[in-house]
């Protein structure tokens, strides 16, 4: 793999850009791997990357039924934050956020991490108390957040209507080092490094069955034939239940559609991420100038990547009240992704009833921000059978009642 650098750009400029090589190889699958990771999204690729980088395991295949980064990694609103309430969440999300800070240098790939600051608006007394509590919890956890009053909110986001008659802004939970990153670049950067370490990224290859013998995983059947493995990591977000069914167990997961949409590009208008959880909307501005908007999840099981129209309508209506200046904007496009929801809105990083199979799923509506931390913890779990970051996110918690309840702390939308 040739390093990307200013010298590389200069060299290629002199020879009409004829020397750029493919960022990753597209090999045919081998007969056997030490570890097979199903799902070449951000989480799967990050798991592979840290398996190689930290644990020296490089005989790895990452199998993807579509193209890499084409699922939820390419469908999210790219928000990165770690202002969660519970200690285990703060630990893994803060690990992820801190890895994002160094990720471009680490991967030699510009992931355009932009720690532009993130506000979660408090628009009711109840929310205000909740966010103040989160600030205190974050300070104890070593996550830098603070409570800011409404005047400071207004100075950070001048287009915000803080006197809205129905939902006045009372203040906000502010994480200065939260922000956004370029979602595709995160997947591409990880993929390039994984390929350079000798891992096989096998796209357009759907897993059709999981083979087990005596309670232990043996391999997978795919549309490109049988592939054997010692360990199997399922990192497939919305399709986790489908894959688990192939392996013979059930997960506490329900899949639903979550939508996002972007406006036409406009001049720089808002340079922080604003989340208004009471009215179910969040908004930031992309580098292209589009306003990136997300809302709530549908309430019913769905695998179609098409959400319900009324969510778009409700969220846009709420945001027009919050940001009156956007009322005349046209929306360019809208899309949906299938999110894997757990009961406590926290992820699952766990061993499974089948020996050698590990799952990383349940990130629900907020997986993008966690990609590096999730991959780091999952790699440790696969390599060493234990990860302190993942320990509390085990499947056991549903039996023992040790939930990591983030459904109230994080709001619905994140």
């Amino acid at each position: 793999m040739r390093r990307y650098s200013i010298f590389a750009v200069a060299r290629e400029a002199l020879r009409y850009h004829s020397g750029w090589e493919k960022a990753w190889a597209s090999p045919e699958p081998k007969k056997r791997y030490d570890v097979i990771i199903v799902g070449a999204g951000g989480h799967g690729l990050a798991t592979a990357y840290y398996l190689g980088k930290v644990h020296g395991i490089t005989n790895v295949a990452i199998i993807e039924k579509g193209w890499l980064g084409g699922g939820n990694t390419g469908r999210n609103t790219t928000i990165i934050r770690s202002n969660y309430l519970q200690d285990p969440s703060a630990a893994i999300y803060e690990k992820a956020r801190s890895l994002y800070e160094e990720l471009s240098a680490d991967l030699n790939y510009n992931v355009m991490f932009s720690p532009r600051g993130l506000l979660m608006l408090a628009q009711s007394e109840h929310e205000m108390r909740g966010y103040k509590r989160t600030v205190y919890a974050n300070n104890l956890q070593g996550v830098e957040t603070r409570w800011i009053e409404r005047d400071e909110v207004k100075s950070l986001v001048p287009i915000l209507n803080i006197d809205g008659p129905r939902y006045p802004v009372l203040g906000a939970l502010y994480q200065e080092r939260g922000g956004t990153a370029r979602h595709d670049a995160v997947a591409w950067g990880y993929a390039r490094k994984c390929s350079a370490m000798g891992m096989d990224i096998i796209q357009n290859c759907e897993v059709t069955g999981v083979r087990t013998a005596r309670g232990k995983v043996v391999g997978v059947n795919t549309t490109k034939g049988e592939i054997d493995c010692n360990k199997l990591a399922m990192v497939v977000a919305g399709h986790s239940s489908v894959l688990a069914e192939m392996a013979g167990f059930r997960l506490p997961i329900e899949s639903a559609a979550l939508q996002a949409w972007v406006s036409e590009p406009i001049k720089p208008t808002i340079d922080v991420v604003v989340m208004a959880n009471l009215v179910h909307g969040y908004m930031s501005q992309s580098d292209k100038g589009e306003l990136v908007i997300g809302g709530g999840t549908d309430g019913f099981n769905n695998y179609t990547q098409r959400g319900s129209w009324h969510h778009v309508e409700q969220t846009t209506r709420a945001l027009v009240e919050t940001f009156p200046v956007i009322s005349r904007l046209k929306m360019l496009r809208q899309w949906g992704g299938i999110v894997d929801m757990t009961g406590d809105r926290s992820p699952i990083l766990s061993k499974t009833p089948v020996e050698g199979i590990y799952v990383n799923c349940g990130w629900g509506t907020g997986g993008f921000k966690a990609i590096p931390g999730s991959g780091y913890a999952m790699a440790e779990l696969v390599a060493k059978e234990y990860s302190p970051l993942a320990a509390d996110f085990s499947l056991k918690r549903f039996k023992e009642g040790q939930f990591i309840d983030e459904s109230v702390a994080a709001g619905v939308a994140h």
Partner: protein
Amino acid sequence: MLTLTCPCCGVTVEETELAPGGEAHLKRFGPGSSDEEFETYMFARKNPKGVHFERWRHAYGCGKWFLTARCTATLEVFGSYPAQTTEPPAELIAKIKEKRPGWEGYK
């Protein structure tokens, strides 16, 4: 937009008039059951990519719960039936099997 027919009042309504209630026909486990049974009842879900039996409530109408068979991969609705039953009616099963020959069946 998803439209379902409420078997209690007979009207066909849009989803904004309904409240989703998750997987249908769960076997309840309460006090005295084992941890596994309780966990399965509370959390483990089929979550199939295909035919799904689910609960809905006609929240902004008659207020009654009812059950629906729907395909989660296409959003096709096969039919609705009253909630006062422990398994889907035979004619609905037959109708689904006709439309989805590869379907492994209810259970």
